[in-house]
């Protein structure tokens, strides 16, 4: 198959990552430091997610990779190929058929099951980082549950804009204890995080792993008078007519005409195959 070990990483590295994953599951939302390895792909391109996937995959798994919800974006293709080559695992684009899904910036629209594992690529795991650049400080804030600064920031948004001006990587509180960065998923996806599947988060460059076990309480931070709102573009999908999916905006021509299509390509495909047709779609071939 290749000159490298199963799933690329050596066994000692996998053990180190596996220990971190278990700690992460035991303390949901807490960022466990791990000695991230240098991977054969650049930092910032999913090295954390790739290491978590490599430590998690078994040969029997079926692996799916999405970037921006799509299986065919270049980096998703590249990561999928990496594991086809180094782990020899089966891959799929169908959410339901996947046992391990690695994602960047989205949670699939289809509800995930107890038999699935969702691995997130995380660029900046520290939700407080944009308020306080120092790790030594943010670590203290987590230790003392001192999250006032975050609330102040959100409240300043409200006083300035009349709304919370955070639309992705919207902070959540996990199991009533740790404030956690959900990775740069749109806030539309936040409510899905209370799910049946295991969620693992890997930040390679920042050397952190964290986790959310199934059915864990995940609450998006908000205020009584300004409750959290999971928003998306106010359109149906122009290809499959879905009203409930997160949409990408596509510029169609020089006149600036647009269309809106599901960001989850597998969800859109399965709906079109089931006969749903949007404004600009056409009937699936019989």
């Amino acid at each position, binding site marked *: 198959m290749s000159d490298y*070990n*199963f*799933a690329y990483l050596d*066994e*000692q590295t*996998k*053990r*180190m990552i*596996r*220990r*971190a*994953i*278990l*700690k992460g*599951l*035991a*303390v*949901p939302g*807490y960022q*466990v*430091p791990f000695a991230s390895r240098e991977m054969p792909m650049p930092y910032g391109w999913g090295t954390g997610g790739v290491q978590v996937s490599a*430590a*998690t*995959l*078994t*040969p029997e798994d079926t692996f799916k990779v999405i970037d921006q919800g799509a299986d065919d974006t270049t980096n998703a293709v590249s990561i999928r190929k990496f594991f086809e080559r180094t782990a020899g695992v089966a891959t799929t684009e169908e959410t339901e058929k996947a046992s391990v899904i690695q994602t960047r910036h989205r949670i699939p629209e289809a509800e995930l099951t*107890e038999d699935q594992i969702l691995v997130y690529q995380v660029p900046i795991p520290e939700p407080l980082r944009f308020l306080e650049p120092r790790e030594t400080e943010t*670590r*203290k804030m*987590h*230790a*003392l549950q001192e999250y006032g600064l975050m609330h102040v920031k959100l409240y300043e948004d409200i006083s300035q804009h009349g709304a919370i001006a955070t639309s992705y990587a919207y902070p959540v509180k996990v*199991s009533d*204890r*740790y404030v956690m960065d959900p990775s740069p998923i749109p806030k539309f996806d936040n409510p899905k995080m209370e799910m*049946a599947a*295991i969620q693992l988060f890997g930040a390679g460059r920042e050397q952190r792993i964290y*986790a*959310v*076990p*199934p*059915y*864990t*309480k995940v609450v998006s931070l908000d205020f009584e008078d300004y409750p959290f709102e999971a928003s998306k573009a106010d359109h149906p999908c122009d290809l499959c007519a879905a009203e409930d999916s997160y949409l990408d905006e596509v510029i169609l021509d020089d006149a600036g005409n647009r269309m809106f299509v599901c960001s989850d390509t597998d969800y859109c495909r399965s709906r079109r195959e089931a006969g749903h047709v949007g404004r600009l779609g056409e009937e699936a071939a019989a």
Partner: protein
Amino acid sequence: MNQMTDNTVYAGGFANPPVASAHAFRAAMNAMARPGTVQKITGATPPEGISPAAGSLLLTLCDPETGVFLAPDVDSDSLRGWLTFHTGAPIVAAEEAEFALGGWEALMPLDRFRIGTAEYPDRSTTLIVEVAGFDAANASLSGPGIKDTAQMGLPDPMACASNAMLYPLGVDFFFTSGSQVAALPRSTQIRAEA
């Protein structure tokens, strides 16, 4: 060491380490992610007296970077030899251990194990507790990983509940029997049941 123990020491490792450890880890992760559920875990054949489940956990998680404490009821030359040969993990005192192995009584008192620090709650011990089996639930569990509640048989529900009070500090438990494993992370709320 005679020939007999030598063989025991060198035998019983994972037949195909990358694959066997991936399977064993999946079982361990499912157990830790879903407290109270029992998972099948195999692959290792540790020396007499140690369950294949505990042996598989040790091979999957331990290496020269993790100190292991062996409680008096499981500590033996053959186990030390086996662990050293297959993992390179140093045998350490309870207070310094990343992992601790033994029966419940022999592992006690619980408060000698590391529970992490406020800034690094992960710097804590994971206990691998050998138990007779998983029948006879005596505790009701709730919290992360549990849909509503789960039932589980615990050696000492009160001690586990006090550990949970330390959250986010505390130790985490694996319970092993034969080729089965269950887990109890510190995040689980425990109610003793009659």
